[in-house]
């Protein structure tokens, strides 16, 4: 028994140590990318913005230069972020190796962890086989979204409106973009993506484990917040069959992620809820307390967070 505990501890610690290293790497990579982009901005674009004088102002030339700077800056970011994405995928794949052992203990024929990864990555528009973003997919959209160009454009417009000098503008831009000591612009930009990604990844793992254990009932688990979607509120802490959840695929609601099974996405983008699989026997026992299987909550007339 003592030997078994030692093995469990060692394995868990190896897994945790890898997670720590991976998250530290990601945080460092984002910060380095932010710092690099900030340097590029200072080196290549700042002089164009001040080409008309020592103070920022709304002239045709400065506005043209500012727009060009914003678009080019977006391009630099897309190029850099694509290489970062590959590093993220490599680490996720390696992390999965640590979990693969228990799938073989279950006697599953294929390394199911690998297919879990492939399913989630594909739903986000990343092809694990080629380690590239799928054209037209979600990730390509994130990398090419105009958010960064809009952010830079907005900073420049605010600088022009205030008639800022070079030093003052650089300090303002650095504060907003790099945000020393806080969360920088790129970290914020990727926040939703990483939240959704890890939520979905966890849910796919649950689905695979549940299939392996022969479970086809689940609790739509979580808590309600002020802006919880009606889709989630109707189902929260109720028990469903996988068959019933299959019918939800045909429904449409604000926030639904296109082409992703509802059992995997639940309420869609930014959804905080999880499917907790249970046995049929347990589902029957919980019916009295949490309502009949495949039933729905009535929507509250007015959301009132306690």
């Amino acid at each position, binding site marked *: 028994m003592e030997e078994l505990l030692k093995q469990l501890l060692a394995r868990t610690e190896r897994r945790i140590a890898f997670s720590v290293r991976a998250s530290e790497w990601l945080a460092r990579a984002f910060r380095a990318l932010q710092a690099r982009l900030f340097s590029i901005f200072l080196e290549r674009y700042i002089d164009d913005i001040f080409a008309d004088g020592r103070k920022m102002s709304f002239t045709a030339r400065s506005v043209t230069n500012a727009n060009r700077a914003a678009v080019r800056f977006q391009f630099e970011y897309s190029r850099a972020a694509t290489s970062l994405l590959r590093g993220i995928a490599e680490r996720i794949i390696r992390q999965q190796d640590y979990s693969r052992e228990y799938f073989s203990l279950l006697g599953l024929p294929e390394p199911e962890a690998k297919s879990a990864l492939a399913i989630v990555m594909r739903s986000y528009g990343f092809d694990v086989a080629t380690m590239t973003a799928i054209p037209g997919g979600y990730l390509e959209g994130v990398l090419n979204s105009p958010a960064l160009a809009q952010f830079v454009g907005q900073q420049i417009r605010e600088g022009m409106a205030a008639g800022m000098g070079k030093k003052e503008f650089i300090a303002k831009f650095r504060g907003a973009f790099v945000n020393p000591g806080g969360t920088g612009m790129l970290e914020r930009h990727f926040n939703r993506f990483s939240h959704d990604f890890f939520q979905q990844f966890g849910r796919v793992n649950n689905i695979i484990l549940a299939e392996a254990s022969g479970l086809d009932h689940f609790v739509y*688990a979580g808590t309600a*917040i002020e802006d919880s979607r009606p889709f989630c509120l109707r189902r929260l802490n109720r028990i469903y069959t996988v068959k019933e959840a299959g019918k939800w695929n045909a429904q449409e609601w604000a926030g639904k992620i296109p082409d992703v099974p509802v059992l995997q996405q639940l309420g869609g983008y930014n959804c905080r809820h*999880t499917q907790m699989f249970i*046995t049929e026997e347990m589902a029957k026992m919980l019916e009295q307390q949490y309502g009949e299987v495949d039933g729905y909550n009535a929507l509250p007339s007015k959301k009132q967070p*306690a």
Partner: protein
Amino acid sequence: MTPEEYAQRQRELLDQMAANRARECLAITFDLYAQVRLRINTRGEDYTGQKFSPYSPGYAATRKKRGRQVAFVDFNFTGRLQASIRPSVERVTPVSATILLTASGADNQEKLRKALVTPKGNPRGNILLPSADEINRASLANQQRAQKYII
């Protein structure tokens, strides 16, 4: 059924039980943890039925500002911690299976560790522990499923 057929059937069922051990143990863990989640998410109680020590006034204010409930402690802000907790089969032998139920990711592990010792006066403890009722229900469900291994 002749005695030989009976013995043969017994052997088959025992083999089946051994082959399904990991899956059955996973199912028990799923049943236990789902009940723990429901209890925490709907009532904010620990395994003894006591309410978890309330949020500090500062954190409660932050939660309220971000649209989260503060009536009881639900260990749920972004949903990441609860979503990261899942069972994994650590070891299977001919007579036992060991299932590990914990959070994945260093940040989520840290949240679980923190609950063990905070707040100082009345720590929330091991939030993954099931109550006696929850254990009984999971056990009963398991007994019902185990009928298939009995002739």
